[in-house]
Structure formats: structure tokens, C-alpha cells
């Protein structure tokens, strides 16, 4: 019977030691991400029956359980997904903040104001070369500003796109890791019959990290089957079966999308959450939208000003003029789509006047010559031929099909263009280009600020009055004129500029609010998880004392039993 007591004490020593091992493991992993507190569950050993009596046979470690709440785990995954989305979006938007300027640093709105202000000063002093230089400089400033803004946005867009590549690599590594853990968990649990707590923690953490990258749903049908799929239902991992993400297809914005490897169909719902979703949204719906708005603003500014400018005249009329846009198909109509003329669609049936002057500056003849344009009919060749027929000048196409008009020793000017053909082909325009990437002040204005149009040639007398400011007045009026030249909703250039800043600011604020909300949610869920599964060192130490005392008591039983045996053996001696 004394042996039985010794055996029972021995089982206790072993069980208490194992429980302290579990506590030690908990304390060791107090700061391990994803670790769930484990609890040693002790149970009585199988009793022994002696006659009518049942004698207990000590204690044994029945199980080691981890503290886990599947609903909480799922909520943390969802929260991590949305938090990562908001953080990625907010960070990406913050990076481009400088693009939109601030009240302390001049932005696009300020540049536009300055440009139109300079044109207003020119309208009031059309002969003043200083005002002309001012207009040219602010025109260059706007073009530079627009280009810089676009370059920065495109650069950030490319950065977001390459960021998606990195996240896909991470996601695929996590998917591989989860599949590997599935195998290990299955093997260990099948072998030992007990739960592989640490491996399950690692798998939950990997799934949580995967959720931070891409929106997924974890399907854990029972304790053995484990499957992760995208929100669109594409399988990523099932037990040891792995499907990788890849780049492919098209996102519709010129960038390749995210697909399942081997497929070209874009993943549904990929932009709904996670870092990949955040980067995709940033790239396509935010930066892409700003670039589109910027290009639209540029198109409206460029053509809007050019249309007015081309009908005016500078202080000094040039001897020759070359269009800054080349015709791709001279035999086709001036407004044909195949001409590759950005604003060909703006050409309408109408006419313009060309005024030729001799070397003394006398109009030849007074009143100029009218060139008629019929949209869809008049070809570039025809227009050039009509111009070439005007006395005192020649017109031709150069090797790259630019229209070249030459008045020899005299000079040439234009007026009353109701067809928009001069602006479309950039003859006598202020700006060159049709979007923020190629906008510039025209070569003619860059070379000589005197060619900036403030007034217009008198259509009846062909006189170019230096004090005239009719075109300048129209141009300063243009800043408040709503246009939709590129098919966008009608708005003035100033409204477009303000809307761009407001759009951006709204997006940042929304992302910020979303991030703050998700962070608060994350803190709450993390606190709940900490309460449930976090290691509390105080509690562990108290438990340790409890098991330590039990261990000591069991050891005392061993000592007592030993003394009892000694006493028994002493009777024999």
C-alpha cells in the first residue's frame, strides 16, 4: 500500500511539473505575436477497485488547451484587413500631399490666379513688354506646375503598383506557410491525438497577416479541414493545396491587375480591403482620378486659351508661322480622327482670316483673305493649298507634315477663327500640348513675348493696333467660363483646380477617419483577445506558486512514505 502512495505522489510530481512547464511556456511567450495562453488541465488517473472500494491512483495531465475564440479570431482578421486598407490608403495619400500645395506654399490655384492676373495687367497695358514677359513667365510656371504635379502623381502611382508586387510575394509566402502548417498540424494531431496549439497559433497568425494583405475568408469546417479563399470565392489554400496570386489581366487603368496564377480574370473584390486593396484603390481610384482631373484641367486650359489666342495678334507679327501639331494624314479632313490632332473634335465648319503685310507693314490687301473650313470635308492639303493661294505668302507642309506659312520679307497674322482649326493645329497659340504631361508654352511665345496676343487684327482694315486688348479681355474672362472641352463635366479652370484639392482633401479625411475607426476597433478587439488569450504574468506566477506548492506537498508524501518504509524495514531488522 505504501508503494501505491509513492506512485500517486510520483504521478502528482510529474503532473505538477508538466503544469509548471506549461506556465513556463506561457511566460516565455508573453510577447510572442499570435500566441494564445495555454492551460494545463489535470485529471484524476483511472481508479483502482479493491473489493467494494475504489481507490484513486493519482493525477495526470489530461490536456493542454489554448485559449481561443473563433469569432474573435475572425473579427481580428476582418479588422486587420480593413485597418491595413485604410492605413495604406492614408499613407499613400499623405505622400502626395505636397502635390496639392498648401496655404503657405503657392499651389496650382495660386499659379493660375497669377497667370490670369498677369493677363489682366497685360490687357491694361498691352504695349508693355514687362507685362508680356510676366504673362509668359506665369504661363511657363503653370505648365511646369502641372507637369510636376502629374509626374509626382504618376511616380506615386507606379510606386503603388510596384508595392502590389511586393505584397503579392508576401501573400504567396503566407499561403505556402499556411499549407505547410496545415500538414504539420495534421501530422502531429493524428500522431499524438492532442491539439497542436503552437502550430495552430502560428497558422492563425499567418491567416491574420494574409488578411492584412488581401481580403480573404477562412473556412474552418471542423478541427481538421482548413481552407482560405478570396472574397470572390477563389481558393488560396486548402489543407496542403496551394494556389498563388499573380499579376495579369488589366485593371482598366493601364496597369495589370491581380489574378490567380494561371488565370487572366481579375480577382473579384480584391480592392475591398487589405494592403493590396489599399494600393489598388490608391493607384486606380485616387491617384488615377487626380491624374485624369489634372489632364482634364490642362486640356480645358490649353485649348480654351489657345482658341482665343489664335484669333488674336501679338505686338509684332511674324514673317513665318509653323503649326506645332503635325497632320498625320494630310489627305484626310482636318478634323479626321486619324490626324492625331488632340483637339480635332473641336474643329467645326467656319472660317478664319489671314492677313499678309509687305515689308513696310502695309496690309496686302486690307481686310485679309478668308479661308473656309468645312468640318469633315476640308482636308489639310486643301487648307494648305488655300493658304498658299493667298498673295504675298506661301504655305506648305514640311517633312513631318507641320503646316508652314511664310510671308517672306513681310509678315502674317490671323483673325476671326470661327472654325477652331488654328487652335487645333496650334498655329499662333499660347500653349502647346493637351494634357499635364506635355503642356508647355508654345515655341512662338517662348521665343518672343511680343507674340503674345492681347489685341486682334481689325478684320476690315487689317490694322494691328498695339493698344488693343480684346483678346486679353476674353482670356481673363475665360478663367470663370465653364467648359468641358474633353467631354468632362462643364466647369471653369479655377473650379477644376479647387475641386481637385477638395477631392484630395476629402479622400484623405475619409481615409483618416476610416483608419482612426479601425484602429479603435483593433484596440478593442486586441484588448478582448488579450483578456482571453493574452498571458498575464501575475496570474501565471500565482498558478506557478499553486503548482509549486502541490509539487512540494507531493514531495512530502514521498518523504513520508519513505519514512514509513524505513519504519517498516526497521521492524524486520
Amino acid at each position, binding site marked *: 500500500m505504501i508503494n501505491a502512495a509513492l506512485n500517486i505522489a510520483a504521478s502528482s510530481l510529474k503532473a505538477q511539473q508538466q503544469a509548471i512547464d506549461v506556465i513556463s511556456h506561457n511566460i516565455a511567450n508573453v510577447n510572442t505575436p499570435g500566441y494564445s495562453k495555454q492551460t494545463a488541465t489535470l485529471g484524476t488517473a483511472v481508479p483502482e477497485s479493491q473489493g467494494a472500494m475504489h481507490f484513486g491512483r493519482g493525477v495526470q495531465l489530461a490536456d493542454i488547451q489554448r485559449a481561443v475564440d473563433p469569432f474573435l479570431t475572425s473579427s481580428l482578421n476582418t479588422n486587420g484587413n480593413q485597418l491595413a486598407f485604410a492605413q495604406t490608403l492614408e499613407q499613400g495619400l499623405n505622400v502626395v500631399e505636397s502635390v496639392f500645395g498648401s496655404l503657405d506654399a503657392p499651389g496650382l*490655384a495660386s499659379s493660375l490666379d497669377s497667370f490670369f492676373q498677369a493677363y489682366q495687367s497685360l490687357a491694361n497695358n498691352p504695349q508693355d513688354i514687362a507685362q508680356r514677359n510676366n504673362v509668359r513667365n506665369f504661363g511657363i510656371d503653370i505648365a511646369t506646375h502641372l507637369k510636376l504635379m502629374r509626374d509626382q502623381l504618376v511616380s506615386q502611382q507606379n510606386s503603388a503598383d510596384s508595392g502590389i508586387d511586393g505584397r503579392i510575394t508576401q501573400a504567396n509566402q503566407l499561403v505556402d506557410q499556411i499549407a505547410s502548417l496545415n500538414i504539420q498540424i495534421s501530422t502531429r494531431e493524428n500522431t499524438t491525438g492532442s491539439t497542436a496549439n503552437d502550430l495552430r497559433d502560428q497558422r492563425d497568425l499567418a491567416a491574420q497577416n494574409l488578411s492584412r494583405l488581401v481580403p480573404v475568408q477562412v473556412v474552418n469546417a471542423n478541427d481538421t479541414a482548413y481552407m482560405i479563399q478570396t472574397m470572390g470565392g477563389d481558393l488560396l489554400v486548402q489543407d496542403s493545396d496551394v494556389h498563388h496570386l499573380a499579376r495579369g489581366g488589366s485593371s482598366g487603368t493601364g496597369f495589370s491587375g491581380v489574378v490567380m496564377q494561371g488565370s487572366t480574370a481579375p480577382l473579384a473584390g480584391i480592392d475591398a480591403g487589405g494592403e493590396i486593396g489599399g494600393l489598388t484603390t490608391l493607384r486606380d481610384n485616387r491617384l488615377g482620378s487626380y491624374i485624369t482631373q489634372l489632364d482634364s484641367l490642362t486640356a480645358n486650359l490649353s485649348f480654351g486659351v489657345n482658341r482665343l489666342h489664335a484669333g488674336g495678334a501679338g505686338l509684332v507679327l511674324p514673317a513665318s508661322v509653323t503649326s506645332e501639331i503635325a497632320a498625320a494624314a494630310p489627305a484626310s479632313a482636318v478634323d479626321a480622327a486619324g490626324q492625331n490632332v488632340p483637339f480635332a473634335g473641336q474643329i467645326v465648319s467656319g472660317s478664319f482670316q489671314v492677313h499678309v503685310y509687305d515689308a513696310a507693314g502695309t496690309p496686302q490687301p486690307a481686310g485679309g483673305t478668308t479661308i473656309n473650313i468645312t468640318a469633315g470635308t476640308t482636308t489639310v492639303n486643301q487648307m494648305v493649298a488655300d493658304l498658299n493661294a493667298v498673295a504675298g505668302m506661301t504655305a506648305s507642309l514640311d517633312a513631318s507634315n507641320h503646316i508652314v506659312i511664310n510671308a517672306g520679307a513681310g509678315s502674317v497674322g490671323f483673325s476671326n477663327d470661327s472654325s477652331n482649326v488654328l487652335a487645333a493645329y496650334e498655329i499662333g497659340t499660347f500653349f502647346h500640348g493637351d494634357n499635364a504631361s506635355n503642356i508647355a508654352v508654345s515655341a512662338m511665345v517662348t521665343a518672343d513675348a511680343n507674340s503674345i496676343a492681347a489685341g486682334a487684327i481689325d478684320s476690315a482694315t487689317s490694322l494691328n493696333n498695339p493698344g488693343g486688348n480684346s483678346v486679353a*479681355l476674353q482670356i481673363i474672362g475665360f*478663367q470663370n467660363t465653364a467648359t468641358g472641352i474633353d467631354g468632362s463635366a462643364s466647369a471653369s479652370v479655377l473650379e477644376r483646380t479647387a475641386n481637385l484639392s477638395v477631392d484630395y482633401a476629402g479622400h484623405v479625411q475619409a481615409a483618416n477617419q476610416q483608419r482612426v475607426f479601425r484602429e479603435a476597433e483593433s484596440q478593442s478587439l486586441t484588448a478582448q483577445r488579450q483578456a482571453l488569450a*493574452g498571458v*498575464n504574468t501575475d496570474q501565471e*506566477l500565482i498558478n506557478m506558486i499553486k503548482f509549486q506548492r502541490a509539487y512540494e506537498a507531493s514531495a512530502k508524501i514521498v518523504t513520508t512514505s519513505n519514512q514509513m518504509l524505513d519504519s517498516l524495514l526497521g521492524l524486520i531488522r
Partner: protein
Amino acid sequence: MMVSMQASYDSLLSGISKQLDLQAKGNSQVASGKRFTRPAEASLDYKTSLDIRHGIKGVQSSLGAITTAKTRLDNSMSMINSMQQIIVRAESLATQQASAQITNADRQGALAEINALKDSLFTYANQKLDGQSLFAGTATGTAAFVKDAAGNVSYNGNSQDRTVAITTTQIVNSNVRGDSAAFSKMFAAFDAFSAALAANSQTDVQTALGQLNDAGASMTDLNAEVGARIRSLNLQQQLYDDINLSLQNRQSQHEGVDIAATVAKLQESSVALQAAYSQISTLRSLSLVNFLR
């Protein structure tokens, strides 16, 4: 719910992070003197700021334009005043020369003075400001009046007015054109007076006197009209000065930060921050590990 030490630290860290954000924002506001400077800080307020600043720039442009127009009209009026004085002198001479007692020699002597006055009128009528003809319309590069071989003066400018844009929709004329009736009457009266003196015709001198009186009256009317335009510009200048002041005030109210309130918030945040730091130190000592010896 059991609160683990980790949760306590997380909670304190989150609070510290929020307080540091408040400190950074407050410091930025105090340093800049503005409630916000970036669009991301206040989207619609930022747009309002852009609108106010656009308005201020526009008003400043308007004030510049008014100054330009006033300068031109002031110079024009000065020339018209000078021409009026010459007409008055010519009227005086004509009154004298209309007398029957005036001899031919007297009239030829007066003719010399009239021709000199006529030259002065021609000079005043061709006056330039910043190298641009005042009275030639928009043909500012050419002389407003030219004289033919016979000494006849004719208008050489065009019929377009020099305008100044006060706003994109408010355009005002900033010039007096030489083809107005006052100028033609003036030169015609002087031509008639010269011819009458050369012909020693008392009757023609009396007729010329009438023409001079008429030209003088027209020039006075013109002068009054210019004066009225300048007066109107002065009123507009006053109006735009007021608008400018109002917009500057609005900008200050809209963008300016309440320094006292911000400093109070900073102080409040500073106390919270210090308390959080102190609590971290306290938490550090609140562990069973420290009591198990």
C-alpha cells in the same frame, strides 16, 4: 474581463500617440498662426481659403487696373486743361482782334502768336504717356494728330477706345479719343482764326471768335466728362479698398487660429501626456515579479 498588463501598456501607448498628434497639430497651428495650412486638414475650409485668396488677388488686380485708368485719365485731363488755357488765350486775342481799330499789322502780329499757340495745341494733343499716345485710341504707337504740308491738322488715331479691365466683366474706357468733336472744333476754330488774321478780316475774326467760344465750351464739356470718369474711378477705388479690407478680415477670421484656446489645449494635452508617462512608470513596478523574493 481580465485586463492583462500588455493591454494596459497598449492602451497607454495609444493615448500617448493621440496626445503627441495633438501636440504636433497644436504646435503647427501656433507656429503658422493658422487653423490649417494643408487641404487634408480641412477640405471645405481649404477651398473657402482658396476662394478668399482668389478674391483678394482679384481685388488687388482691380485696384491696379483702376490706378492705370486713373493715371491715363489724369494725364489726359491735364492736357485738356492746358489746351483750354490756350483756347482762353486765343479767345482773348480774338476779342481784341475783332475790334475795328485793329490794323493789319496788329493782326499779322497776332497771327504769329496764334500759330505758336496752334503748335502748342498740336503738341498737347500728341502727348504721350509711357511712350503711348494718349489721344490716338488703341493706335498708341502712332501720333494722335498729323499736320499736312499746308499746316492742316487731322486725326491719325483709330476709333477704338483703350479699355482697362477692372474685373473680368467690368471694362472701362481709360482714354479720351482725339476724334471727339471738341478736338476737331478746336483745331477748326484755330484754323479759322489764323485765316481771318491772315486775311485781315474783322468779320471772319468775329466768326472765328464764335468758333473759339464753341470749341472752348466743347473742351470744357470734355474736361468735365473726364473729371466725372475720374471721380467714378475714385469711388470704385474706395469700394475696392473696402472690399479688400473686408476680404483680409474674412481671411484672418477664417484661417487664423485662436492662440489662447490652442495653447490651453496644448497645456491640457501636455498634462495628459505627462500623466501617461508617469503611469507607465507606475505599471512597471506593479508586477508580482517585484514581490516574489
